[in-house]
């Protein structure tokens, strides 16, 4: 099998695991004693959030690999950009599903909880990174500046998190946010939870591979475009 076939097979695998997670989460697992059917969101929301953090971890590592002269290679830059874009999709979905869960649990769509606020800032932080890449035309500048911006974000995230945690704990009495999971999750609930994490991670991997290949093809097309333009002006190379 060639590479493209492998990617397609893997995509089908990711899709199947997500479908199984849905069936398990929506129909097979029992409703929770306290949260009722609402607990079914636990099979998607934390998994989606985990993938968002994973994606930004990959962005940070590959940006560092690009900046470090010994490992400098455009592949790292393309990987960082691909992973960020997928990460932004997952971050947006984390906020949406969290909000949907929050409405019936806390009675509001949004609350200034530490985790929610950090996640919202993450979304705009990496949207900025993608915007910076889009406006930087020179390929090498885009790679270097993108990597520096990703490094800034990487250092910033723990500081953001710490400040937001203090903001909520130093000044406000206990928040409504204690929808902590029922500590006694057993049997099929635990398996479905685990499957959710695996299936969304598989979806992430497939998406990053796809996005990376698109980015690589675009870069090749860019090069070819330049070459063609040169050929038109100067004759054959």
């Amino acid at each position, binding site marked *: 099998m060639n590479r493209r076939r492998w990617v397609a097979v893997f*995509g089908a695998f990711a899709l199947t695991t*997500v479908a199984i997670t*849905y069936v398990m*989460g*929506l129909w097979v697992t029992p409703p929770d004693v306290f949260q*009722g*059917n*609402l607990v*079914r*969101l636990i099979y*998607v*929301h934390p998994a*989606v959030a985990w993938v968002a953090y994973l994606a930004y971890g990959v962005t940070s590592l590959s940006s560092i690999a690009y900046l470090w002269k010994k490992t400098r290679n455009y592949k790292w830059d393309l990987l960082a950009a691909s992973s960020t874009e*997928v990460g932004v*999709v997952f971050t*947006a*979905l984390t906020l*949406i*599903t969290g909000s*949907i*869960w929050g*409405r*019936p649990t806390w009675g509001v769509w949004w609350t200034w909880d530490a985790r929610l606020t950090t996640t919202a800032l993450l979304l705009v932080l990496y949207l900025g990174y993608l915007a910076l890449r889009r406006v930087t035309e020179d390929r090498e500048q885009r790679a270097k500046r993108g990597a520096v911006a990703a490094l800034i974000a990487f250092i910033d995230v723990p500081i953001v998190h710490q400040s937001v945690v203090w903001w909520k704990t130093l000044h406000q009495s206990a928040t409504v946010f204690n929808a902590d999971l029922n500590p006694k999750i057993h049997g099929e609930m635990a398996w479905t939870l685990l499957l959710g994490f695996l299936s969304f991670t598989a*979806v992430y991997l*497939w*998406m990053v591979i*796809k*996005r990376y*290949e*698109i980015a690589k*093809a*675009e870069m*090749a*097309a860019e090069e*070819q475009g330049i070459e063609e333009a040169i050929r038109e002006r100067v004759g054959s190379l």
Partner: protein
Amino acid sequence: MNGYVEAGYAAVTAGLGSYAIWLSVKSRRLREAFVRVKVDDEAPKQGE
């Protein structure tokens, strides 16, 4: 179930689904464009 659960699953499906479709369409288009460029490149050579 209660509306919220359905909405949550629907949002994830719609979000990931539309992004996945966009990825597939874009990669197919790029691949076709490359094939065309190759054919164009070879065409004048045959005429030479």
